[in-house]
């Protein structure tokens, strides 16, 4: 198998940026780590368990125009961003759970009416992930179908090994094209058992069991107690690598404007407010139930796709300590099986 030293990895990434690819990598801003485009690799950090914001923004940005118009004299110039070829991008430093989330997110946006913008970005994206050698108490990837060294969704997966280097699994054609072009930066090493280097994440619950129990738990008392301390912000949804809800906003004037897609959250009280004034989810327990049900019941039932990869970002970000892992353990333990 292949391996790469730390210095050569930095050279590889710098080379990709020099080729004109947009390289997203984890950088520290204040106390937190975010994915951001980098030109040189000096600010790239490696010592994080998980970034604050997920890498979903490389496929599904915080906001983006879906269509724009501008009057030029009597003519109207219309700009359709999906008509342009998306920029080639490289995501570096995503965790295996993140890579799986990006794959599932792209599948989600490809259902029914395929989303051309997101499909285009996925096609032009190469994912170079980093296995987890450390985890914390909020991680629960092994309960949602991923694991600290899972290859799903990555084009190249690096695993830190001895001597300041990384074992490199070249997993797809996109990964191979980079590894082949930059072959001098890689060396060949004998096959290793990467498991010995990986973090141990104990399985906290079975998502199949949770799914079965949720299928008849809509009216269960568990929702009332669970959501009392939820303050109804969107932190959990906005740091989540799989939350895909968006709102459409019109921006601009009669002369120039855009229709913009913006992230939205089912935790917000006005998320389901109807024009009539009726709100089918008028209290926070109904909104919290929706969050859990959507990820662990509705999506799996509809598309065999669990809407959570166990990255734990929501639990770390929550101002009220709504710990998702704990809540799912509670459901697994306390909701009766019919």
């Amino acid at each position, binding site marked *: 198998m292949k391996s790469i030293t730390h210095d050569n990895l930095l050279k590889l990434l710098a080379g990709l940026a020099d080729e004109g690819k947009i390289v997203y990598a984890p950088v520290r801003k*204040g106390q937190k780590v975010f994915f951001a485009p980098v030109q040189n690799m000096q600010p790239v950090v490696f010592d994080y368990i998980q970034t604050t914001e997920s890498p979903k923004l490389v496929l599904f940005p*915080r*906001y983006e125009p879906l269509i724009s118009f501008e009057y030029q004299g009597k003519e109207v110039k219309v700009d359709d961003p999906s008509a342009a070829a998306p920029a080639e991008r490289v995501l570096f430093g995503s965790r295996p759970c993140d890579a799986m989330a990006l794959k599932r997110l792209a599948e989600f946006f490809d259902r029914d009416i395929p989303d051309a913008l997101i499909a285009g970005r996925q096609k032009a994206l190469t994912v170079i992930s980093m296995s987890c050698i450390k985890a914390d108490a909020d991680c629960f990837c092994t309960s949602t179908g991923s694991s600290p060294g899972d290859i799903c969704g990555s084009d190249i997966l690096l695993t830190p090994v001895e001597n300041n280097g990384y074992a490199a699994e070249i997993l797809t054609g996109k990964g191979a094209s980079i590894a082949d072009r930059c072959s001098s930066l890689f060396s060949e090493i004998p096959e290793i058992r990467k498991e010995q280097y990986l973090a141990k994440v104990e399985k906290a619950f079975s998502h199949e069991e949770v799914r079965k129990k949720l299928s008849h738990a809509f009216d269960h008392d568990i929702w009332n107690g669970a*959501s*009392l301390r939820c*303050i109804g912000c969107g932190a959990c949804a906005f740091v989540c690598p799989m939350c895909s809800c968006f709102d459409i*906003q019109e921006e601009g004037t009669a002369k120039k404007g855009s229709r913009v897609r913006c992230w939205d959250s089912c935790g917000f*009280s006005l998320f389901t407010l109807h024009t009539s004034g009726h709100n089918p989810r008028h209290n926070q*327990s109904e909104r919290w139930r929706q969050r859990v049900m959507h990820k662990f019941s509705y999506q799996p039932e509809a598309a065999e796709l669990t809407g959570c990869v166990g990255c734990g970002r929501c639990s770390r970000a929550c101002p009220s*300590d709504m710990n998702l892992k704990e809540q799912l353990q509670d459901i697994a333990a306390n909701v009766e099986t019919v």
Partner: protein
Amino acid sequence: MQALHQKVKELLESGKVQVVIGYGEGSGGKSRPVFIRSAADAAKLVWDDRCHQNLAVYINKPEIKKMGKAAIVAHPAAVRTIVQMIAEHQLSSGAIIVLAVENDTLEELTDNSSLEVYAQSHPVLFPPFVVKEIEDIAALSAAERFEFWQNELEKCFKCYACRAACPLCYCERCIVECNQPQWVSVPSHAQGNFEWHMNRAMHLAGRCVSCGSCTIACPAGIPIGLLTIEASRIARTEFGFEPGISCDASSAMSSFRNEDKETFIQ
């Protein structure tokens, strides 16, 4: 803490209150808000230096109000918040029993005058790092300050945790959700983020009691409370408004006095 457990037990056993809003053990060594409804659970309450969140944010939550009369474990900033909520008619006098906690002391405050006396004897005390942050930013030129906030607000993805964590951000329909006309640009681009945070600071000018809950809540780590703290400093020094110390104070931004300065109109 024993005194707190004893007091909560008495309040629930006597039926004086049906729920106590307090802090309990959370995940990963954190504290979390808890809602104690039976005397047997009183010992689940904790009070220590992990307990920063301003619990006054839960007082008017419909699910909590439905439980009956409440008592609340309140640090000094939460007591100021409650005074300010009464002044702004968001809470009626005597509607809640306040268990004011600070270090090892516990005081039960049940009426407006005791709340005011407590709030006035517990002025805003910023931790040293906040004082330094305020001084550092004040020392910057206007252009540098703008750059500082540009860099900070670039991290904002508009989850509105700052708004949700603030007990004084209680509007059922916030200005960002009004779209006829659209006052604030919704996307989290530079303009939208500046519009939102400037609006928030202005709406809290002279009302923010400097509890710091917004900064603690921000998942992106933006020191967002500095904006409202500064707006309140200006309201204090220019217009003489000190929030959270009087239950019948008027508001800096919605009252007019002949002697108000107009030097800002240029």
